[in-house]
């Protein structure tokens, strides 16, 4: 039973696999009104025909030809099956629920229909009358530079526009001109514009002008019944010389991509450029004395933060110049020297007034330190500027400012009341005094290189000294802990010293014998008690001392042994010869043993 059910399932699956299929799908079931989306038709079978799109309705427009195709192949047993896909562009024009009708397609001799696909269409913010750009590629080539078709549908030329403009083309030298550079990009469904030029957009050449800060803004405007996003750059420029000056052209490169009525997206490259703008700059008339250099309409005012002050305590004095023009051309007004006060250097601040960036206030603030008590008047300050509107120079004078200076309790002393005033007073104190005199105390003048050499030496000595000391202590500890090493190390010197003393010893032969015997017992870490010449020969044989050297060594020891028991002692001459022979054999044996050990 189980086998039968399985076989039935497999047979049905195989059967289904053997039949052709066709289905429709969308990239999203939620779309926006008038915004293109894609319908994908997929058919699977051995032989597949071309799909037939459904009739379009007023609510839903589907392109008659696919915008893209694809296919794949699969093999099952001995049969081969193909899958093909077609992508169609579509636009929903009405808000609400919309159903994509069935596509008809011939698969394996059978006419198949795709299932309808239901969509939810949400409203868009764009005007409802917009359509995709109406030009086909062929129409675009014929209608070059034609600004619109008159039916509300834009052309390629309408997609991007640039312009430069000025508010004045005839000015006086130093008078401000507002230069505006703008890029208009069409706000249309399916239209995308990208800038493809250099990373930094070059501003139009303004040679001969002093240029102010660039202000950037965006706007949304209609032109020729078409909506545009406008990106605007504005800058005030001031001609620095008279004559005819030119604001150079401005260029812009980009690419636009748009879905045309054919349903295919198309691209177009743009390389746009504006015309240069000529500006006629009139020279200024002969300036009067005291002309500040400012061109514009300005007024000047003076004020203090407090009219009642104390002797020695600084107070802020503000000179404010307000008007329209180039603020950088407004220099600090000339402040007269006062015999009753000290005035420091100004701090400058520029700010725009209200919403108009052309109306500015440039303020100069001074630290005024009254030095004499009493009522004092700060005189009016004149400011002369050239007014372009009237073509004449205008002088404005601030009102005088009266200060009541109270005497300081301790007389004319600078009094600290705040950190800022301390700095100002410190500045006054510094400027009022002379510099410190030269010093005559210059002990130990010497070249710097000598000092560096000494320093380098000093730094290197301690670690070297420590290293030597550490090695010494290590050797000492080894002597203390390793008896055989200590005996071996000192064996030769000890034997040589003993041989050196032998000549003057009471028993010279005995000393020589002991020297040679103790050497061997120290060298081989043996007990030296009762060591005979025969024992010495055995030790030397065990350490592969050459036979002739061994015989010589033992012979000297035997001679010393015999002298011990002889009735007649050896003469000094014989002792000397014996000692010399002992030294010789000792050194040779020691050399061989050292070689043996180092190997």
């Amino acid at each position: 039973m189980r086998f039968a059910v399985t076989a039935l399932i497999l047979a049905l699956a195989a059967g289904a696999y053997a039949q052709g299929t066709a289905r429709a799908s969308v990239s999203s079931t939620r779309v926006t009104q008038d915004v293109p989306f894609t319908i994908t038709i997929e058919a699977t079978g051995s032989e597949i025909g071309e799909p037939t799109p459904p009739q379009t309705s007023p609510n839903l427009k589907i392109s008659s030809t696919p915008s893209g195709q694809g296919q794949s192949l699969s093999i099952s047993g001995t049969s081969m099956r193909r899958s093909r896909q077609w992508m169609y562009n579509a636009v929903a024009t009405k808000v609400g629920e919309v159903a994509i009708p069935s596509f008809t397609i011939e698969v394996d001799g059978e006419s198949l229909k795709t299932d309808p696909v239901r969509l939810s269409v949400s409203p868009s913010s764009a005007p409802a009358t917009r359509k995709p750009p109406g030009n086909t590629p062929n129409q675009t080539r014929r209608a070059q530079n034609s600004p619109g078709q008159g039916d509300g549908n834009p052309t390629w030329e309408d997609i991007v526009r640039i312009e430069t403009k000025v508010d004045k083309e005839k000015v006086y030298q130093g008078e401000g001109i507002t230069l505006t550079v703008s890029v208009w990009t069409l706000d249309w469904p399916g239209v995308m514009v990208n800038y493809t030029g250099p990373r930094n957009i070059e501003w139009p050449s303004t040679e001969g002008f002093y240029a102010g800060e660039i202000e950037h803004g965006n706007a949304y405007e209609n032109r020729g019944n078409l909506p545009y996003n406008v990106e605007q750059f504005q800058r005030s420029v001031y001609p620095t010389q008279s004559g005819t000056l030119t604001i150079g052209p401005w260029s812009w490169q980009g690419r636009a991509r748009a879905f045309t009525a054919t349903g295919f997206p198309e691209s177009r490259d743009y390389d746009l450029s504006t015309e240069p703008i000529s500006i006629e700059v009139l020279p200024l008339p002969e300036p009067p004395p005291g002309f500040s250099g400012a061109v514009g309409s300005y007024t000047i005012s003076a004020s203090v933060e407090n009219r009642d002050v104390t002797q020695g305590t600084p107070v802020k004095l503000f000179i404010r110049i307000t008007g329209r023009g180039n603020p950088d051309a407004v220099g600090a007004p000339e402040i007269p020297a006062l015999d009753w006060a000290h005035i420091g250097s100004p701090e400058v601040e520029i700010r725009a007034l209200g919403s108009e960036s052309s109306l500015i206030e440039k303020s100069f603030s001074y630290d005024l330190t009254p030095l004499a008590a009493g009522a004092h008047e700060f005189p009016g300050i004149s400011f002369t500027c050239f007014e372009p509107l009237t073509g004449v120079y205008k002088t404005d004078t601030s009102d005088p400012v009266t200060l009541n200076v109270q005497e300081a309790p301790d007389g004319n002393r600078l009094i600290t009341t705040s950190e800022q005033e301390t700095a100002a007073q410190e500045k006054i104190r510094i400027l009022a005094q002379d510099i410190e005199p030269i010093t005559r105390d210059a002990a130990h003048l010497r070249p710097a290189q000598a000092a560096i050499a000494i320093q380098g030496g000093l730094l290197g000595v301690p670690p070297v000294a420590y290293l030597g000391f550490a090695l010494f202590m290590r050797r000492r500890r080894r002597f203390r802990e390793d008896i055989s090493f200590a005996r071996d190390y000192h064996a030769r010197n000890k034997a040589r010293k003993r041989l050196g003393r032998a000549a003057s010893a009471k028993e010279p032969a005995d000393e020589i014998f002991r020297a040679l015997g103790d050497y061997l017992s120290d060298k081989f870490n043996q007990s030296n008690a009762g060591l005979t010449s025969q024992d010495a020969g055995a030790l030397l044989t065990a350490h592969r001392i050459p036979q002739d050297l061994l015989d010589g060594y033992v012979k000297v020891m035997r001679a010393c042994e015999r002298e011990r028991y002889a009735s007649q002692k050896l003469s000094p001459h014989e002792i000397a010869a014996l000692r010399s022979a002992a030294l010789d054999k000792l050194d040779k044996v020691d050399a061989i043993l050292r070689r043996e050990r180092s190997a």
Partner: protein
Amino acid sequence: MNAILALFLALGAGAFEQTFSQANAAYDNGQYREAAVSYEQLVQQSVADPAVFFNLGNCYFRLGNLGYAIANYERSLQLRPSFEAARTNLDQAIAQTEHKLNRPLPPAWEQGLLFWHYDLSYRTTWITSAVCWVLFWSLLALRLVRRWRYLRTTLILLAVAAAAFGTSAWIKAHPVPMAVVTAENVPVRFGTSEDDKVRFELAAGDRVSVGDTRGGWIQVSTGSGERGWADSKAFALVGPPYTDLLMLQADVPTGGAAQ
């Protein structure tokens, strides 16, 4: 041999003191240029002494050259931060500059780790470092002979102190290069060409730190972080090394009346 070397050094030292005295005498007589020449001779002979640089700064101040005056006051304070007279005169000179720029600050890590060393002279830090160094190795050698209870802690502290003061001494011997503007209105550009745009301008006496150098251009940075390239001829390097200034080569431009 050692006696000969000591005699040589003594004779040399005597000649330096004589030159110094001559320069002082010229200064007292109002011969500021001659005094500066003598002080510069000492500098040329690698004598790096705070008193020499201080007096040289006074000469340039009297001659109206704020840039060189400030550079030499800075050198003096570099060698002896506690030199009050040099600090006073430096403040006086800075107050007379156009921009009154602050001194460029050292790197942030130095300000954080070595905040304590700015009032110490190079000599003080070096000697302290050397003493700690010698003590460290001495105690380490003593450890081979006998063990003390706090020996390890003492060794660690000495090692840290030697490292800290040694680092301080090294930094004082190799400070971030600083230069002082010696010309009026020096343009600082975006690049190393006369055609490059001017980024900002420096005035005589402005202090900047020096970064890269290319040909006759140096990359300068102000205390507020403004950076650009300028002609190296318009600057006096504070050093070290304490290179020759212009007094020996050509007429030093003097600006304004001397006080």
